[in-house]
């Protein structure tokens, strides 16, 4: 443990710390057993600064923040000291804590879609926060809500105030959340993974807003994140947590240039990196130039003018999720499908798997027509024959593996469905597969809940390649994983792909991840392809303005690079 006890670079002249945490320890009692979630955590935060609390899942970063708010469950035992402007918060009486919460400390949470109460309007919820701390009339509060919503950059504050959460987008909701958090002029803003659930272009806007508010309102921000790109973008100081302990405490600039602790170095190495961005003047050229198919080779996947529609909310109107998409994947080729939420990337994956019927266009996998098999006339046997030639890896391994079956059984399932291997042969094959994904064969008798997230995703990959598929569909296979686990899974993915030689449709919102794996990249926006081409070309010198914007918005784990990207992003998004 090389925790630096003194941190001279944190001292800003003349200001005593606003928030100071010392010797913080949090224990949870679970089934009579005491488990320590946070151990001897200390940190200091001054006004006008952004302190990032960084760590992977289970590192204790959120627990530390919740302890500051006094919002830990009753089963938690908190020791140590947390002072805000000299006021002790640990063990403070409920009334004082309520005054602090929402009054002195504003909070933003990760998932704006669920963090706001679905049955109240945005305006009501913000006004409620104001009236909880200020003795103002309803009309004064309403007026203030309007101002706040305008402050956080929402275009139609009155309409937003009247809206219910389900009527707004994730980005709008997170801005509304921020408006609520700053409604009582807090001195400290706690932002718990404020952009994790958002698209990169939306994330860039939210980070920009936080940066702006920090200087305008002279607040301190305690930022909790797992994303080194976000840290590089906005943080002044960084505290790295691991298993509830502080492993490194330093200025953000130094963390990236000179990480002192081995764990920090590992963490930084694990972050997938985007190539340096060179933004040429975006050509307004023809958006979707289909790459010509290689002559003579039958493509693993061929989509021609694919259209997929979903029934809309109001009857009769259908939502076009995929609009006239044509693409092909050659045998053994990895194609990265990139886009933000609602771009139709997952729908394309599901159509390929025969889970969603195509409204028009053709879908063929290794020459077999999926569109026909999955269409109105249900051809179960044909669909099964096609499915036997593809594997699918989903985003969340915890929910895509049957919790009541051993992982060995799960891996063997496609074998018993589609092959006539005997029990012994199946078992041998399962062991081979486990070995191929870097798991000891003994794990075959484990249940999913007895494994870590990374191990489960390895199992999911083993199951997907069990039949030696011609095509593997991977839908955000690493987004639910910690960054160090993600790095190992991506490494595994590459080696498995080499070993089995399948074609792969790799769906992801993360450009850096796609860059690591894909031969070719296809960029989707609102159901249409805006750009496609070799990964190196598209991600280095994008031609379509949207791709440029997407690339500029993606934060990278390097403050200097990130500053350039941020500037580029501002240029790209500023009107005129």
């Amino acid at each position, binding site marked *: 443990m090389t925790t630096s006890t003194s941190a001279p670079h944190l001292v800003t002249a003349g200001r005593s710390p606003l928030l100071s945490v010392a010797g913080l320890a949090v224990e949870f009692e679970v089934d009579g057993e005491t488990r320590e979630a946070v151990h001897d955590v200390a940190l200091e935060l001054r006004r006008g600064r952004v302190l990032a609390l960084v760590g992977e899942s289970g590192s204790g970063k959120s627990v530390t923040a919740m302890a500051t*708010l006094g*919002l830990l469950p009753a089963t938690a035992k908190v020791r140590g000291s947390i002072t805000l402007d000299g006021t002790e918060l640990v063990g403070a009486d409920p009334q004082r804590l*309520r*005054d*602090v*919460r*929402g*009054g002195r400390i504003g*909070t933003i*949470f990760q*998932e704006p879609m*669920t*963090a*706001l*109460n*679905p*049955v*109240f309007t945005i305006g009501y919820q913000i006004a*409620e*926060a104001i009236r*909880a*701390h200020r003795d103002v009339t309803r009309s004064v509060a309403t007026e203030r809500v309007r101002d706040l919503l305008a402050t956080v950059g929402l275009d139609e504050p009155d309409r937003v105030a009247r809206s*219910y959460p*389900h009527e707004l987008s994730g980005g709008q909701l997170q801005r509304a*959340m921020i408006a*609520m958090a700053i409604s009582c002029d807090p001195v400290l803003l706690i932002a718990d993974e404020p952009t994790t659930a958002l698209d990169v272009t939306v994330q860039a806007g939210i980070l920009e807003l936080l940066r702006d508010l920090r200087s305008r309102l002279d607040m301190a921000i305690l930022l909790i994140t797992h994303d080194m790109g976000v840290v590089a973008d906005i943080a002044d100081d960084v505290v790295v947590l691991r298993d509830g302990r502080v492993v490194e405490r330093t200025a953000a600039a130094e963390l990236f240039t000179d990480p002192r602790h081995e764990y920090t170095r590992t963490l930084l190495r694990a972050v997938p990196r985007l190539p340096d961005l060179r933004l040429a003047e975006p050509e307004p050229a023809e958006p979707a130039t289909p790459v010509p198919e290689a002559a003579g080779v039958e493509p693993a996947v061929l989509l021609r003018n694919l259209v997929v529609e979903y029934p809309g*909310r*109001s009857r009769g109107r259908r939502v076009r999720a995929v609009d006239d998409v044509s693409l092909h994947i050659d045998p053994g080729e990895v194609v990265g499908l990139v886009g933000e939420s609602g771009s139709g990337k997952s729908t394309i994956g599901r159509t390929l798997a025969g889970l969603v019927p195509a409204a028009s266009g053709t879908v063929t996998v290794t020459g077999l027509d999926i569109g026909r098999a999955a269409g109105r006339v249900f051809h179960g046997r044909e669909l099964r024959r096609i499915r036997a030639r593809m594997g699918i890896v989903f985003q969340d391994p915890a929910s895509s593996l049957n919790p009541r079956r051993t992982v060995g059984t799960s891996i063997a399932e496609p074998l018993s469905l589609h092959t006539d291997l005997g029990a012994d042969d199946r078992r041998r094959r399962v062991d081979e597969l486990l070995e191929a994904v870097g798991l000891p064969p003994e794990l075959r008798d484990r249940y999913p809940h007895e494994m870590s997230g990374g191990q489960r995703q390895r199992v999911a990959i083993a199951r997907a390649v069990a039949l030696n598929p011609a095509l593997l569909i991977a839908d955000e296979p690493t987004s639910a994983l910690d960054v160090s686990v993600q790095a190992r899974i991506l490494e595994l993915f590459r080696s498995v792909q080499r070993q089995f030689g399948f074609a792969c449709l790799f769906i992801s919102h993360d450009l850096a991840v796609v860059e690591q794996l894909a031969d070719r990249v296809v960029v989707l926006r609102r159901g249409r392809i805006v750009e496609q081409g070799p990964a190196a070309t598209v991600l280095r010198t994008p031609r379509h303005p949207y791709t440029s914007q997407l690339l500029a918005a993606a934060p990278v784990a390097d403050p200097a690079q990130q500053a350039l990207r941020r500037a580029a992003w501002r240029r790209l998004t500023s009107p005129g």
Partner: protein
Amino acid sequence: MRALRLVSGRLLSMLVTLLAISLLTYAVFYLLPADPAQLSCGRPCTPQRLADARAFMGYDESWFRQYLDFLGGLVGGRTFGSGVAAVHCAAPCFGYSFRLNESVTQLILDRIPVTFSIALGAALLWLLIGVGAGMVSAVRRGTPVDRAAMTFSTVGVSAPSYLVGLLAILLFGFTLNMVPVSGYVPLTEDPVQWLWHLVLPWCVLALLSAAVYARLTRGQMLEVLGEDYIRTARAKGLGERRVIGWHALRNVLIPIVTVFGLDLGSLLGGAVITERVFSMSGLGALLLDAVGNIDLPLIVGVTLFSAFLIILANFLVDLLYGVLDPRATR
């Protein structure tokens, strides 16, 4: 505009459902091996008298014609027979009980105050007790209070109402002599006696349903308390009372209102067992008597009326749902 379309759409589907139910109910006439004309024809029943009775009641027509007459009666009333012997049944005519010599509508109207008094009072009581107990249980999860409430609720769910009713009469009525054990006093006649006579049936009915609602509320509440927006409500400095009693409760109520509407609707159609146990002549007792006497027009009328109440309750729940849950109006 959208709300208007929603309401008119629901109204239309309600009408269609009612028609389907009326048709099904009317089938009783043809499925039951009983002939109202035969029953009221007296002895000796000559073929001529039987035919006369049939013609008088309108049973000499085809089943389709009879059904249309029935529907016509609902809308515009109808007249049975002609001349001096004619009886008129005013709209909405749910049929005519030739046995009791009274229109079914009038018979139902006579019984409504009793049944509605029992049902509404009991519903209010069980809603308060059930939701209250469920909330306390959820908030004090795992404590003796929670365990006691849930044990009590298990007993309530499994106890049959006639048993609880009879035991309550025995204990509070006869042994302790606290409340009257039977009968109904109209509210307009003597409000205090009205209340006094209803206390026991209310408690018995409420006790049983409250048990179900307590479980439902507890489960919903535990789920809602784990939601992110509850954490947000706390993080903005609201007190526990407001967090639970307003932010959480508003969301807990959404599924509860659905169940409540249906329960209340079917209870308004007659609490058959409770009415019998407490010797109150409500709709349930009316239906029971009608079945006992094979009074077909009355059976059909009361059944249809009960179905109408349930569908109406369902409709109101749908509307209320739109108010409680803004996501539902889509």
